[in-house]
């Protein structure tokens, strides 16, 4: 089942004009604040009626301006995970979880709530009220409440933005599990490249109300025209497999035609692993550097060069068939005489690939 969105909407001076398709898995709507991400999600949820367009989940049409179809929110079969959890304060966790399920049962289906409660680890919280929960716990309950509503489409509007780093890394694995265990499309709004890198099956990059780029996470994040859309933290995503574990605590990953050494990854050899490499952690050299501590010196070819407005430049590299981004200064780019097509070396410290930037896919216990 996939979600097809096609809409245009205008309010004040802002014009939204976007169309895309979200297949099974996580589709991340990625872009700066004000680029129209939340407007799209709210239109899909039926909380905002766009001027014109069409929205459909599989064969079910939620909105069609030419055929005058407008399904009200409560009949759309959604699971909407809000940034601010929005648990009902007058109900216990158990009652909050039961809320959507009760309405879904009238529609004739029932899901094993014990499985969801176990997956989210909220069994001990059932008799508490939302006021007595931490931010991370609240968000986990909100995920459970959305799942138990038997949704045919899951929406998540920056569900981690209000949480600190520790809570984020507490919640992210649940979304990974969700992506790997459910067959319904998940539309996930984020402006964090790290979240995109870990979760995205496909990415829709938005800029000023338009779709700037759409594709897989590796394609979109490796495109220097797109990454500046997200604030800071530009970086590419590599799809790799675990080759060997070295006794000195390093893991060797195979990424296309190159090997990458990173701090130990807790996965067996052969496992598929996704690595997020931030552009600022990649150095460039025009000759193979010698006598340096960095362990990864990879031959690369410059595919594109993007000079920013500030002192920086973003360089897109082909490294053994992978796309990699490097952030250098404009001065370095000039001094080294960097140009498209040039053969260079990308230098990457093993330790700069953070644990958070490495994610397994489909390997969590089911």
């Amino acid at each position, binding site marked *: 089942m996939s979600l097809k969105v096609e809409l245009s909407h205008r309010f004040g001076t802002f014009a939204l004009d976007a169309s895309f398709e979200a297949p099974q898995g996580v589709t991340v709507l990625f872009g700066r604040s004000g680029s129209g991400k939340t407007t799209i999600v709210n239109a899909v949820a039926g*909380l905002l009626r766009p001027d014109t367009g069409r929205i459909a989940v599989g064969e079910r049409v939620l909105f069609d301006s030419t055929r005058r179809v407008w399904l009200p929110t*409560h009949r759309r079969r959604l699971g909407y995970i*809000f940034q601010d959890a929005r648990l*009902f304060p007058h109900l216990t966790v158990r009652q909050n979880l039961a809320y959507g399920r009760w309405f879904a049962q009238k529609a004739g289906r029932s899901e094993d709530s014990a499985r969801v409660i176990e997956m989210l680890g909220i069994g001990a919280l059932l008799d508490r009220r939302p006021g007595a929960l931490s931010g991370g716990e609240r968000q986990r309950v909100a995920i459970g409440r959305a799942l138990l509503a038997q949704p045919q489409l899951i929406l998540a509007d920056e569900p981690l933005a209000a949480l600190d780093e520790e809570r984020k890394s507490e919640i992210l694995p649940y979304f990974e599990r969700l992506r790997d265990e459910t067959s319904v499309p998940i539309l996930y709004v984020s402006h964090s490249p790290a979240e995109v890198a870990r979760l995205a099956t496909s990415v829709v990059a938005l800029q000023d109300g338009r779709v700037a780029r759409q594709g897989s996470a590796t394609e979109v994040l490796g495109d220097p025209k797109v990454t500046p859309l997200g604030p800071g933290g530009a970086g590419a995503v590599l799809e790799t497999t675990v080759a060997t574990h070295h006794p000195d605590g390093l893991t060797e990953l195979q990424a296309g035609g190159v090997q990458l050494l990173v701090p130990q990854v807790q996965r067996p050899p052969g496992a598929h692993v996704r690595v997020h490499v931030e552009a600022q952690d990649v150095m460039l050299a025009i000759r193979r550097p010698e006598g340096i501590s960095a362990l990864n010196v990879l031959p690369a070819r410059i595919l594109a060069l993007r000079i920013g407005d500030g002192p920086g430049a973003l360089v897109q590299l082909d490294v053994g068939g992978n796309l990699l981004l490097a952030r250098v200064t404009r001065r370095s780019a000039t001094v080294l005489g960097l140009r498209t097509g040039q053969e260079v070396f990308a230098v990457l410290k093993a330790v700069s690939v953070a644990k958070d930037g490495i994610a397994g896919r489909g390997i969590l216990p089911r």
Partner: protein
Amino acid sequence: MTLLSPEEWQAVALSLRVALWATLGGLPFGILVAYALARWEFPGKQILNGLVHLPLILPPVVTGYLLLLTFGTRGPIGSVLQDIGIVFAFRWTGAALAAGIMAFPLMVRAIRLSIEAVDPKLEQAGATLGASPPWVFATVTLPLVLPGILAGAILAFAKAMGEFGATITFVSNIPGQTQTLPSAIYAFLQVPGGEASALRLVVVSVVIAMTALMLSEVLSRRIAKRVAGA
């Protein structure tokens, strides 16, 4: 009740009955109007708001006379109601109507405030989980505003207990029929030797009013707590 004479007790009992019906009868309208004023945008909203508050700012005698003109047996609404057997003029039901209308603004204000304190985002969340608008109202909005509704009802009850001007203008001061507590105090003060009875009824009034006010205070404090989810 040995503290009060049968005549005094009659006035207290009648007042309690009048106030109870004034409150219960006004509540559905009060919730509806409060919800409309808090959540809906419609032409004439300010006019409705003004009408609701009118009894609060008009001299009660004026409200009572207007009631007599419209709900009297020859009034436009009163004559129609009389045909189907409902009579307000000079009956305890009329006292309840007058008290209900005088108490209405206080009730609406309290309920409106508590509806405005409910985050519409919670109602949106209910809708995304499959609840239709009536269900959202019943399962999200209503439980969250319940303390406000109770506070408004208690305030309205206390106001209805003490209503005098509009009541006496509309339904007069008939012992056992329309002589409520304040009317009885007024009547006792008009006859020689009635001061002791009046004083006893004054004490009863003060006790009822204070109890209602404190109950209302406690409940409104709960609103904040409950909406915060503690």
